[in-house]
């Protein structure tokens, strides 16, 4: 990519941010729930535990097009089924999306379809292993995505006239193609970092080799003119099957949060 193309790319990203910075809605959600972790580079066993999620979402929903930027942080502590061994998992994901929007039912239903670019970085750390104690996670994915937002009356007309309508938002993100980092099947990080021996460590992924799935269901209701309270559910299934290694981090988290700037 020459310099002009890089500049155009950076300008495009900047435009995305500038659109969203003028957006009507920014929400912050904190979640807690179960997380299942498998990484066959570290162990053949599945680990289960509790995890914490922070999710910030900036959304601009225009008449025809909308933009979304999401920042998501996961932290999990998990144990094996014998309660003998621990895993720590952490990840950060940046989702930048662009959607075509359709207003239906007199504006009460907004359907959006588009795509997300998902950049993820993270780690899984096994507290007991010696030469294979951790797994680094790095990926870039293009994900088809759809959002449905339904606005409806809650607790009767008087309440709605005073506080405005409630909204139920459902987002589904699916994998398409991408790139992911992975050591090879039996490759040590010593070979990678001390000896500089690389072997299929940046792997193209598809919806078959990285069958990720992410769903958010959020119920939002205004508490004041500009602040809304939200409850929701986040199912984030990050999976990878490359270099004969298998990995999944499956989060089912109950989310609480607030939105502002509606």
């Amino acid at each position, binding site marked *: 990519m020459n310099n002009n193309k890089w500049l155009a790319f950076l300008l495009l990203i900047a435009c995305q941010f500038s659109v969203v910075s003028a957006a009507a809605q920014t929400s912050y959600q904190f979640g807690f729930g179960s997380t299942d972790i498998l990484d066959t580079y570290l162990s053949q066993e*599945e680990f289960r535990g509790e995890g914490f999620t922070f999710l910030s979402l900036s959304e601009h929903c225009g008449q025809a097009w909308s933009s979304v930027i999401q920042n998501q942080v996961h932290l999990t502590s998990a144990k094996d089924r014998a309660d003998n061994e621990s895993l720590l998992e952490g990840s950060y994901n940046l989702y930048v999306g662009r959607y075509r929007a359709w207003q239906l039912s007199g504006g009460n239903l907004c359907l959006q379809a588009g795509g997300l670019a998902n950049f993820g970085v993270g780690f899984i750390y096994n507290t007991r292993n010696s030469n294979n104690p951790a797994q680094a996670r790095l990926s870039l994915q293009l994900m088809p995505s759809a959002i449905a937002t339904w606005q409806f009356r809650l607790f009767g007309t008087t309440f709605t006239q005073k506080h405005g309508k409630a909204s139920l938002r459902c987002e589904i993100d699916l994998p398409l193609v991408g790139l992911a980092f992975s050591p090879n099947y039996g490759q040590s990080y010593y*070979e990678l970092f001390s000896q500089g021996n690389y072997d299929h460590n940046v792997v193209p992924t598809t919806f078959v080799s990285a069958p990720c799935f992410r769903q958010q269901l959020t119920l939002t209701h205004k508490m004041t003119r500009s602040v809304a309270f939200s409850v929701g559910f986040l199912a984030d299934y990050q999976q990878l099957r490359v270099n004969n290694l298998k990995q999944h981090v499956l989060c089912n988290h109950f989310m609480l949060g607030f939105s502002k700037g509606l």
Partner: protein
Amino acid sequence: MRRLLYIICLLPLFTACVDEEEFADTPQGNFEALWKIIDEHYCFLDYKQQAIGLDWNAVYQKYKVRVDEYMNEMQLFEVLTQMLAELRDGHVNLSASHDYGRYWSWYEDFPTNFSDTLCRAYMGTDYKIAAGLDYRILDDNIGYVRYESFQHGIGEGNLDEVLAYLMLCQGLIIDIRGNGGGDLTNAEKLAARFCHEKTLVGYSQHKTGPGHSEFSDMEAHYLEPSSNLRWHKPVVVLTNRQVYSAANEFVMYMKTLPQVTVVGDRTGGGAGMPFSSSLPNGWSVRFSAVPNYDAQRQSVEFGIDPDYAVALTDEDFQRGKDTIIEFARKLLAE
């Protein structure tokens, strides 16, 4: 456009779970899990089939009948440890809360060729200590450095100080007898002080799949000369059967250098960098995963022969002399 939308709608059908076969937490389940981990991840199954006639499928049949649902944990541990011992690998261990399963015959079946009593006689009490290195100048102006374990870290500053102190000695003895390994970077750091040009010291490869023969190409491993103080005079490395893993690699590196002589017993081996995994009942298993080879692409899993095979003798021991150190001193004095 409509066709693209249909395809996108069908994508959830492909988002199947990425999962691993889960074995029951029963004696049979743990046995199956352990056998499979070794079958798919252990890196010397093919090599040991040729070298010692190991047949891992036959091992399965042999030990499967010894496992039943009524066994207690200790009985199961004993059977699984015996099964792992078929690999004849000191890097293979089974860890439970009550015991540590191991195969240590690679040195237990041989003379130690090292005496702590004699070592203390040579070192005295006024020797110097620089991180993991104990060192002093012997009476005949020979430098003596003892490195007990590569688990003990050393810094470039430590090595500078040690070599500067021994600079006027006519030769150097590096005694790594009993060194069971540790951090490979410590071994490389020390060897680089005796290397004066980029030297091919060996090869490494890794498994690329669960098959016994699925390996990457061999990657050459070069030792780069240290940019700090280096030793140009003769060096003798002392070895015994307990020299294992990273210490075995150190001997492999040093044998490629022209001014280095290895004296003592054959090393214990251990040429596979170990990985870990776990069983349904929480026991941890360690196994060789990344094989290393010498500069001739030969495995050093079962050890490296010294240039001069020398053993401690009872007569010398009675006289308070370490036969191997004395042999090294004579070599360096010549």
